[in-house]
Each structure stands twice: as C-alpha cells, then as structure tokens.
C-alpha cells in the first residue's frame, strides 16, 4: 500500500507547484501588497522623493527659481548655526511657543474635560460651543482677533471709552515686542484647546466607572480621583498629544504670519516664518530647505524620546 506523505515545499519551484502555498501567498502577501501599492506609490511620489530632494536642496545654493543649482556642502547649515543671529532668536521663540502649548492648553483642556465628564445634561452643548473655534479657518480667527485686540477699535478701546479712561486697556498687544508672541499664542490657543479637551473627554469616558466607585469606597476625594484614576486612565492620549503638540510647535506658521508676519522687529519670528521668507522673498530656497531639515530633525528628536520611553515600558 502506498503511503502519501505531504512534505512542506522548500525550493521556489516546489512552492510555486504547491497550490496551498500559492493560495496562502496570494491571500497573505500578494493581495495586501496590490491594495497598498497605489498608496505607497503616491506616498513615494509626494512625500518620500520631495523629502530626499529637500535634503539635497539644503546642500545647494538654489534660489527657488529654475534649476540653476550649485552644491555648497554644509555651508547653509554652518551659516544657520554659526552666522545667522536671527535663527537663534527664532529657535528661542519656537521653544517659548512649545513651552506655552505644552502647559496652558493642556491645563485648560484637562480641567474642562474633567468638569464636563461629570455633566449629564447639556454636556453636548458645552462641548460643541468649546469646539467651534477649532473648526474656524485661521484666516477667520486671526481677522476676528486682530479687530478685538485693535487698540483703537477693539475691546480695550471699548472698555476705556466706557470707563472714561485713556489708553489704559487699549494696548497694542500685537504691536509691542514684549507681548506680540504671547498674544499670538493666546489667539492660537483660543482656537486649539477645545480640540484637546474633546480628545481628553473621549478618553476619560472610556475609563471604567467601577474604578471611580472603588476609589470612592477607598475614601478618595475629587482630586484623588483625578490624580489616581483619571490621569493614569488617559495617559496614552495625554502623552501622545504631548508628542504631537511638541512637534507642531516647530511647525507654527499660519497664525504668526497672518497676525504679525514675524514682527515687530522679529519679536514673533519663528523658524517656519523665516523659512518662508528665505525661500520666497530672499531667493534663498536652499537655505530655507536647510531650515526645513532642521525642523524635521527636531521633530525626529522628539519622536525618538517618546519611542525610547515606550521601549522602557511607558504606556504611550
């Protein structure tokens, strides 16, 4: 009696001859790749290739017009870090911006989300109201606030008129070097923090209520509940948003450009606004590309910190 022994195909020829293997290959390898291929090609075309080109351009003196390009090595980076004083100032402003956005909106969003999580009736209305600024276009938001903060026809001027005062509240917040950057951060935060609050609220609502019950039985007050149940419960969301906000801080551009274009006297200049001016006004696209690469390196550094923490067992 002949005994049929099924052996596992080892060579490519054997594998191709084996129908089971062919089906598995088709289902588990080929079809997923066929589906992902269009996206991969688009990604390569619009992200990966331009990114590599950007790195190359940062090593050239490209003006941004035509293709007359000369390789200059690391000259642009040398100028950026050792000769261009305004870059240091812009970088400092980016760090101030990041410090602001890693504290103020997070505190506001956590506080409000914790309060709203307790609201049973009308909660949706509150959420919607607080979220509305986020869906407004930056051009709309900046136009509104430019008028509100206008020292001659804004809120401050109205208060001065009401109280019979002269130039007490009608301060040119966007026109003073000492207040311009923080005023823009305030306006950007007005639009942004509602988004953060909604994320935290959604995360808080996924915490099992039984944990709060157990905490109450153990005698925890509201602060203890927040500290020992809520915060650990939303930690993945919280830390992920920390990472994203840190990265976004280096990309800050639209609100600053629309409100002060980096002025007065460079007081609100950040790397992205400098990059834009170098590339499009000064015909220094190669130099601007170097600034873009530096921003990417900062973002990569922030991601690396979070990846390291994750590898060390942090729940991110």
């Amino acid at each position, binding site marked *: 009696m002949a005994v049929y022994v099924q052996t596992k195909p080892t060579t490519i020829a054997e594998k191709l001859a084996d129908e089971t293997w062919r089906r598995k290959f088709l289902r588990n390898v080929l079809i997923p790749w066929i589906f992902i291929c269009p996206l991969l090609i688009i990604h390569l075309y619009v992200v990966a290739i331009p990114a590599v080109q950007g790195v190359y351009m940062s090593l050239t003196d490209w003006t941004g017009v*035509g293709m007359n390009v000369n390789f200059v090595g690391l000259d642009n980076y040398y100028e950026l870090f050792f000769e261009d004083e305004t870059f240091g100032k812009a970088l400092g402003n980016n760090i101030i911006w990041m410090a602001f956005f890693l504290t103020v909106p997070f505190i506001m969003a956590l506080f409000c989300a914790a309060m709203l999580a307790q609201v049973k009736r009308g909660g949706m209305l509150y959420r919607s109201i607080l979220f509305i600024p986020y869906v407004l276009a930056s051009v709309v938001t900046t136009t509104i606030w430019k008028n509100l903060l206008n020292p001659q026809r804004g809120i401050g001027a109205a208060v001065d008129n009401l109280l019979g005062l002269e130039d007490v509240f009608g301060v040119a917040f966007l*026109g003073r070097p000492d207040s311009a950057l923080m005023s823009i951060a305030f306006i950007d935060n007005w639009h942004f923090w509602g988004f953060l609050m909604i994320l935290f609220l959604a995360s808080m609502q996924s915490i099992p209520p039984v944990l709060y019950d157990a905490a109450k039985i153990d005698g925890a007050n509201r602060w203890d509940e927040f500290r020992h149940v809520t915060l650990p419960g939303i930690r993945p969301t919280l830390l992920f948003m920390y990472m994203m906000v840190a990265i976004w801080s280096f990309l800050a551009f639209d609100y600053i450009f629309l409100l002060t274009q980096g002025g007065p006297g460079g007081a609100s200049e950040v790397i992205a606004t400098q990059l834009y001016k170098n590339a499009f006004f000064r015909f220094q696209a190669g130099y601007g590309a170097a600034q873009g690469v530096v921003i990417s390196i900062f973002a990569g550094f922030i991601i690396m910190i979070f990846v390291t923490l994750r590898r060390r067992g942090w729940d991110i």
Partner: protein
Amino acid sequence: MKRFKLLFVVAALIMALAPVGAQDVTTVTMWFGEGSTLDCWGPIMLEFNDVDPSVQLEIVPQADTWNVTRTAVAGGGGPDIVRTPGPSFVYEMAQAGLILPMDAFADEMGWGDFFFDWALDLGLVDGQLYSLSDELETLVMYYNVEVFEANGWTPPDTMDELNALAEEVEAAGLTVFSHGNASWRPTNEHFVGEYWTQVAGPHKVYQALSGEIPWTDESLVGAIELLDAHMQAGWYGGGVDLYFTNDGVYRRTSLAEGSAAMNIEGSWAIRGTVDYFNESGQTWDWVPVPSHDGTDYYTIGMGNTSSINANSQHPQAAAQFLTWYFSPATQGKMLTSCLKGPAPVAIGEDVMAELDPRIARLYAELSDASANDRYGYTTWTFWPPKSDVYIYEEVERVWTGEITAMEYSEGLQELFAEELAAGDIPPIPTR
C-alpha cells in the same frame, strides 16, 4: 457601400473644417490676481480680442498669482505672459532661463517708439530685454484739505517746515501721518526709501547703489536716524506700537475723516484715496514729500513687470498682445477708467486732460522730475532681493530700540556688498 461613402464624406468634411477652428486662432494666456483690479482691468484687456480675431487673450484669475506663476513656470508650464512683482524677480527668472529675451520683438514691433528710453533699460538683464515695466509709481504726501484750511496750515516743502507743522498738528490733537503696517509689512520700506532720497538726496542714494559709497555714509545714516526720531515722536500712526497694529482701513479712513493730517503713500493709492474721500465728503490733495532743501524729488518705482514665458508656444502672439497692451492708447484708457498707474509710455495730452487735475498734475510732475534729474529710487525696484527684505524687516528693530541706525546701516552694507559683488543688482538708470 452607400454607408461607407457617407462616412467618408463626413470624415473629409471634419478634416477640412478642423484647421479653421483649431489652428487659425492662437490663444495667449495671462494669469492675474483676483479682485477689484481685475474687475476693472479685465474688460479693457479683453478688448484686445477685437483687434485681431486670430489672436485671442485668455485671462485666468488666480488667488496668489506670483507664487502660482513661479511654480508653474519652473515646472515647464504657466501662462504665456509672465507677470512678476518687480525687476529683481525678473532677474532671477532670466538667470534661470524661464523667460525669453524680447529684443527682437522690441525692434520688430517698435516698442522703443512709445516707451521712455530709461524705462526699457529697466528690463535689461545682462544686456538683453527680458521685461516691460507695467506701472510707473512714485510716493507723494497726500493731505486732507479741510483739515489744513480749518487750521490755517500750508503743506510743507522742507523737512524743517514739516517739523514745525507736525508740532502744530499734534497740538491740535491730530495724528501727523495716518500710517501703519499691519496689512502689509513691507510698507516700512516706503519711508526708508523716501528719507534716504529726501534727506540725504538722490545722488547719494545713487552713489550707494552703485557701490561708490557705503550705506554707512553719514548722510544716509542720518536719514535713518531722522526717520527713527519721527517714529519715536509718534508721527507715524500715533506711536511705534500703534504703527504696528494700524491697518489699511485705518490709513485711509483716518486721513479721509480728518483725524490724521497727512499720509506719505504711493501713486497706486490714488484710487483708494478717491473712494474714501468720496465717502467722507472731504477733499484730498497732494504735494511732493518734503526734502531737506525744498527741492521736489520723486522716487521712481515699478509696480509689476510683464515678460514672455520661455515655455510659451506662441511667443509672437504674446508679443503682439504686449504691444497692444503697452500702447499709449490702452494705457491711457486704463488710467482714465481704472486710475491704473500708467506704464512708462508717452500718454497723449488729450488723455491727461480727461483726468482729475490733481492726478494729471502728479504724472506731469513725475515726468518733469525724471527728465530734470530730480528722481530717486524706490527700494522694491532698484535694490536686490535680500537687501530689500533686510530694509523693511530690520528697520523695525531700529524703531523698537533693539539696534541703532548705524548698526542697521552696517548690516545693510554687508548684505548689499555681497549682492553687488554677485552682480544681483537690478539695472539702475544712470545720472
């Protein structure tokens, strides 16, 4: 067989008629910024389509014309007519081979017959003509006539008279100049350029532009110091911080309604000035910007330029359109209908007679000044790009007290010397 014959006849007819529609008409494309300017200019420019039915103009409105054009042209596309914001942009495009030299068209179509001689020179890059200047500009001092009459003031001729007048204006509780840069930060360069010209004199500016003297020359630094002093005194918009928050609406309304007495602004602002004063019911007029010795100096600038795309399939037709567009007749019509600053071409006296006398006087005086060595230079037309950005960005640091006028001038000198050595300076009319 009958069906085959019928098909053959139809196909032959299509082939015979197709060239009439597709090949006999050449379409020239032009991209233009959306908005009220296009609303007025557009219908006049499209009148070109009646001149020669075989060449038709197509205007494509764009939101951010220059950046869209630059990207498209660099990518091998874009419109046939390439409009740039000024000569320094032309220089970069010509160096990159993105626009065509137009000398042959200029000779063939007689552009030299109607353009002023110096105006065609502004479009030269390495000795070849690459662009035509579209809008002749200058800066003057507008003032509110009712405010001046009510207070018994007369417009100043000299900087000393301006000083005396400014004290009286402030004593009357008014703002001296209705200014601010919140809408357009490069507004700063208008004043830097004017003070250099009016205080140090256009010859000094010419020497510095030619590299004969540095920007740290005492007279040029003195001009920046004077501008800073006026800024600190609150002449410009009521104070340095207010200057940074005052927008275009403030600029126009405060002058037209009489809360500010004067305004140093470009000839391009005439249209807006007329509109706002019509609304307020008050009267405007202008005088030259006061100078140190009372001479009427006018800085000359160019608002936009037109060139022919190197990728254009129809450069001849594009040149045909440019010939029509820059003709004194078309420019005159755009001046009278839209108050468009005319290209530097000889516009007939009959056209000027149709204009508001104040506007006609402005262009007559400008023409006289350019012919009699009383012209200066606007920064956006005659300075290379990096120096130009430096001029309007870094001067804010002088006004905010971060650096001195001398430090500002030293920074400019360093940058300008680099650009001068690299040959990046736009063509400067010789004196």
